[in-house]
């Protein structure tokens, strides 16, 4: 599906990504975790074609990503950037309809009928009532749902999300991730999500990749991967890992106060 082979990228002579191999398969949600500055966002930008690797190659459905025309690529890969949707004056419906752009030909505006896909997506995401509201008047959480609806209208085969639930309250976090999961199952999408919250990652991912210093250091299903030793190795933090009493999924409990010194010394090197 979407594959990165031997990806490396450096900025000003320093490797941000070093020799990373990654495969996102159809019907699978992959979580990307790791501390700030570990290269998660850069990896996402390489995989989405926003930046070109210094060495290595990104392959989409058996063909190099760079060989795709812009619209062809957008028909296959949708991306939800970290900064979310900007507060534009366009209405919810207009923004969702923008997701149809890669499927439109130069003359499709001549067709009288409105694309039924937009209607379907609005209904599915529960945005029908807000369809005529300008996006700039929505809250951050609502805007994120519009962004996801736009991506759905794009009908991609592969969906990349960079920290989709930052700045959201817990109700919105769960709602948004549930929506993505349901859509992913229905369409058998390949999904790659950058997670800050390890507990959410454990709940929603089929596989987790842990990054540190520009490399993928560990990889596996949340059940076996999320352990105290991994968190020690990747984040330099001592944590307890227990099982969720209802779902049985591993959950990480932090012990504040013990790790301040090491974190401060690290954040200085990140700048």
């Amino acid at each position, binding site marked *: 599906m979407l594959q990165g082979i031997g990806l490396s990228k450096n900025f000003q002579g320093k490797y941000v990504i070093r020799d990373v191999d990654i495969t996102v398969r159809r019907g699978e949600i992959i979580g990307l975790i790791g501390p700030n500055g570990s290269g998660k966002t850069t990896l996402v930008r390489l995989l*989405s074609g*926003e930046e070109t690797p210094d060495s290595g190659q990104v392959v989409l459905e058996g063909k190099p990503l760079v060989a795709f025309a*812009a*619209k*062809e*690529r*957008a*028909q296959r*890969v*949708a*991306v939800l*950037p970290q*900064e979310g*949707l*900007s507060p*534009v*004056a*366009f209405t919810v419906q*207009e*923004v969702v309809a*923008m*997701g149809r*752009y*890669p499927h*439109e030909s130069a003359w499709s*505006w001549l067709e*009288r009928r*409105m694309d039924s896909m937009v209607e379907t997506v609005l209904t599915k995401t529960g945005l029908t009532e807000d369809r005529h509201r300008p996006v700039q008047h929505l809250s951050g959480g609502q805007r994120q749902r519009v962004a996801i609806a736009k991506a759905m209208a*794009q009908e991609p085969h592969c969906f990349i999300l960079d920290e989709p639930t930052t700045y959201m309250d817990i109700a919105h976090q769960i709602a948004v991730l549930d929506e993505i999961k349901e859509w992913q199952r229905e369409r058998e999408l390949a999904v790659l999500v950058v997670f800050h919250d390890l507990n959410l990652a454990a709940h929603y991912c089929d596989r987790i990749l842990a990054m540190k210093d520009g490399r993928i250091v560990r990889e596996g299903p949340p059940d076996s991967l999320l352990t105290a030793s991994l968190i020690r190795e990747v984040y330099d933090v001592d944590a307890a890992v227990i099982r969720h009493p209802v779902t049985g999924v591993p959950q990480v409990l932090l012990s504040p106060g013990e790790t301040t010194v090491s974190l401060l010394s690290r954040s200085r090197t990140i700048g």
Partner: protein
Amino acid sequence: MNWLVRLSWHGGIWTGVLLLMVMLAASWGSADITIPDVWRVIRAHIWPLAVDSGDPATHAIIWEIRMPRVVLAGLVGAALAGAGVVFQGLLRNPLADPYVLGVSSGAALGAAVAILTGWGIAWFGVWNTSIWAFLAGLFALLLVIWLSKAAAARSLSGSGILILSGVVVQALFGAMLTYILSISEEQLQRIQFWLMGSLSMREWSHSAVLFPFLITGLGVLWCLSPRLNLLTLGEREAYHLGVPVERTRTILLLAATLMTGTAVAVSGIIGFVGLVIPHIQRLLCGPDHRVLLPVSALSGAAFLIGADLLARVAMEPREIPIGVVTAFIGAPFFAWLLRSKSNQLS
């Protein structure tokens, strides 16, 4: 097909307003001419079977003196408003406009150099001034973008930086323009003409030079307006939706600068049209550029014809530079925008 309906409504209304404005401006002045006179003369020229049976002197005043000026005002207004729409949408800055960004000053400098030195006239003929104005306007724009990017890289973020860069470039090019004009042997009136804009003493030939650039520019911009819509979400979003961002951006900036430059080449620096009109139209007909661009061009034309009429008759027989009129309207508007949108500029 929501937007087509909106385009027909708003476009129809503003076409009507524009035609009324043309009639009004052509009939108003020291010679006593009625609106039916104007209609008769225009009809005689655009409708092959119609013949003007009226007074030849009236006919000459309307067709040889007033209409060239009115039409040119309309073309310049459409060009500046259209360029304003694109600069605001593409740079995602509510205060961007050809004048504020310094593109007009750059273009005026280029035009002044072309007129005073005559360089290049052997190659480009009647297009010479326009081409110089375009190239110099483009240089000013690139300078502004380069400056604001350099500033943003030093974490001076926010769209205010773009405007500040525009102010700097405008000051520099304005000073160079004033200097060139003051050492030249041209008369004072000509200097005023370049600095504050004027449409006096203009002929049909000026419209003939501007018209092809305007139509080409507007046509290109309108074809790209669906992409411009996507670009207002941000360049990354547009990229992920399948827009070839770099190429689209370049074409949009070139076309908008071409329209600005060629308008400035025939009329001097007329400020704020590209700021005021797109804003009002965004309130009236929404953010969709497929509607916004043509409607802004139409209403920009009507607006500048009105402003030129005011410049001509307000202190008759003296004439005010048209840039003064638009600044009297535009500067307070700019101030109001600055207050009401300050949250978006931080």
